């Protein structure tokens, strides 16, 4: 584990959650794990940021939650990307790409 994890900006976290769900529906912990895995430990999300984000995304209609039975016979809430969410993700990804390219150009520009 890296000692100083980078804090995530709210909007960025939302996007990462959507991306994670684009592959397959997941429950809370699974999403957190996924983000940590794929970012190779750079981003560690805690419950305090994750769950409010879930609620936000649910309210805005980007994800849908459903309760499923788990292996040990308990209820677990799984989140799933809606079609609206998928479209939003595509748009955000494009926008993100544009912005990072622009920033990179600025940073590399000769003085």
């Amino acid at each position, binding site marked *: 584990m890296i000692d100083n994890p980078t804090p995530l900006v709210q909007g960025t976290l939302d996007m990462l959650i959507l991306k994670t769900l684009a592959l397959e529906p997941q429950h809370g912990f699974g999403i*957190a794990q996924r983000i940590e895995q794929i970012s190779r430990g750079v981003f560690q999300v805690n419950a*305090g940021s994750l769950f409010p984000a879930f609620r*936000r995304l649910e*309210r805005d209609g980007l994800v849908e939650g459903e309760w499923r039975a788990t292996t040990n016979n308990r209820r677990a809430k799984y989140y799933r990307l809606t079609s609206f969410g998928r479209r939003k993700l595509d748009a955000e990804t494009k926008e993100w790409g544009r912005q990072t390219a622009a920033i990179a150009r600025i940073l590399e520009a000769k003085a």
Partner: protein
Amino acid sequence: MSLISRLAVGLGALFGRRKADEDLDSELRDYLDAAVAEKVRRGMTRDEAVRSAHLETGSLESVKEEVRDVGWEVMIETFGRDVRFALRVMAKNPGFTLIAVLTLALGIGATTAIFSAVNTVLLEPLPYRQAERLVTIWGVNKGQRYDLVSDLDYLDWKSQNRVFESMGASTDEMFTLTGAGEPESIIGYEFSPDFFGVLGVPPLIGRTFAADEDEPGKDRVVVLSYHLWGGQFGGDRSVIGRSITLDGQPYTVIGVMPPSFQYPQGTDLWTPLTVDANDTRDRGSRFLRVMARMKPGVTLPEARMEMGTIAARLRSAYPKTNEGYDVNLVTLRQLISGDVRPALLVLLCSAGLVLLIACANVANLLVSRAVARQREIAIRAALGASRARMIRQFLTESVLLGLVGGALGWLIAYGGASALVAMFPKTIQNLSIPRIDSIPMDRWVLGFALLASLTTGILFGLAPALGAGRSSPGDSLRESGRTGSGGAQGRRLRNVLVVSEVAFSLMLLASAALMIKSFFHLVGANLGFRPNHVLSLRVLLPEYKYKTDTQRAAFSRETLSRVQSVPGVGAAASVTFIPLSMWWGTRQVSALGHPPDPAQKVPQPVWSAITPDYFRVMRIPLLKGRFFSRTDDASTPAVAILSSSLARQLWPNEDPIGKQVSVDGLKNPCKVVGIVGDVYHLGVGIQPNGGSPELTSEVYFPYEQSPTPLLGYVIRTAGDPLSVAKAVQSAIWAVDKEQAISFVETMDQLASETIVIERSSMILLGAFAALAVLLASIGIYGVISYTVARRTYELGIRIALGAGRSQVLRLVIGEGFVLALLGAAIGTAGALSLTRFLSSLLYGVRSADPFTFLAAPVVLLGVAVAACLVPARRALRVDPVVALRNE
């Protein structure tokens, strides 16, 4: 998501809260389980895994809080919770709540009451159409800025100006109304037919004057005022067309005005004024009041310029009458409320200061409570409450406090407004005070009170709230209450508050002391005559009955001899214009044989026709020569008595006795036979239309030589003047039972009326100052007792180490004294710079009166020390053993 669906989700969430909570709870537990399972899989022991998972996730409750904060409906929920919590806190500390609410209520109540008075008197729209366009036009004649206007000048002004869309003239008149009960003296006003149009108020019933009703023969019509209609005629609508008898002549009633129409103050009815250009009149005879309505788009400076030009034109066209004659335009608003405005504004500022002091006191209370709640705050922070949340909580508490205080203050203001109306008189003769029957508590006033409560609540909730958020929870939990960063901060804030309280209350105290001193000067002022034990009343002999001089002189002789024989009467006399009655007339007087100095203005003293005993009744001293006697009558040469200032003006270096004066309006010149002392004919209070009180020059004639229809009786009595009032009136009615008698009152009452504004202001300001000092002393008490409580430990040590009583006292009282001293110093500086605004209300007292400015701080310091006494006693009683053990 659309707005509607958002709303719906929010509302749904509000109601479906419990289920959502349960769901969230199980989701979080699931998360934890999964995290634990993962850690176990990675190789931790079960216990380690559980602990680590919990550490990472943080407090479940705070996560839940975060989740719950998403969405708008949360705000309503938390608001509701905040309010309920605030109410519980207030209920648990009833003493604190009561003091805070009362303090706020007094401050807000006082300010609201005064504000409503200011609103009614100074800001309320006048009951005339577009009243801000109405302007009164006066002549400026030899220093007198409110001179009346002659009819020829008026007609020229009217025809030559281009800035006014309408102009009207009026003059006052007294009639005797007979045929309906006792003969009544009625104050009437003659209006030019278009005057009602200038004001733009339609009559309640009937009509106002037609354009031709100013012609002789058509002018026997009258419009009644609302109160006369209600009183004399019982509000009977059929009064229109009825005939009433004024001065023996029949007048037809053609209309009644609505109750709000009061121009001028106290008028009973209106008759038409005849201003005919064909009549040969004297342009120098000035008796009209002119009002005009500015055309839309014309400003007051423009109107002033235009009228100034016209006046200049008239000056060059008619040098004999109009030399030096200019115009003065005064808006109606200024005319109506000008005299009471300074007093009201001073009172408004004072009430504002009281409110500030009240707020400071409540802030003090809140801050000390916040410091006492450090533990609570720390625990809440540890449990995950955010700083913003706690600030919101504190704000809710103080806003609630403010609102409750404001509601109570509103009630106080309601009662206060009624008291105010009782204090300020409805009308004073000739003084510009609007007639207020009540001060309504309308939406402006309500809005003001609301604003005041909310502002104070927010302002002084912020102070402790901000202070609360700053200290770190760990420190607060660890501290023993002895010292603490939060404590020190709170203390500094409290000290600042107390010092400012003391400063404000000193300003109020100094102002009130100045007003009180001024008032006592007023009351004791030498008016030039002695008003005590003198009864006065006025009689106007109607034209139709008393046509000749002989008839009037006979009336005077007979009534006076009868009045003289009434038991209890010492001496009786009559005078045309009773001093302090606010009625007066002036005439130009010049020395015969002395060519008038063109640079000097011709003296225009107040005149009166008097009976010989007048000066004796009024105890006006004779300085030279003699009083009038019975031998000065219609058959002997004309004589006059001058007041000393007039004599000095006419003959600065010579003996005036024996010299002749020519008097405007009298055929023959008069020989000066006596010089008497000057009097303050208009009293020493606020003068009509501004200006400071001055001794009036007067000229007196024997009544037998100038029998005026207006007779003012002055009667000196042995005992209470009112006790002979009935007998005196009967004596007059024995001569003529139809004669109306009015204004039966004592000279003391008259004198008292002239200073009623000063008296009321003084009482109110004194009440504010007392309130302020009380509040400031409560503030000091609070701070000092708090200090004693906090320093119990330290005091215990000192006493154990041998500190004596006086040392402990010095410590405790010393602190309070220093605070008060600082406050007094600042307050004195502030007062010195601000009291100059009071100077228009002060009589015989400088606004920087040294005695006041020495006495007030001393009084305040004394009060401060007294406020420290109770905590000081408590400090003395500290048992060192108990104190040290308790920490």
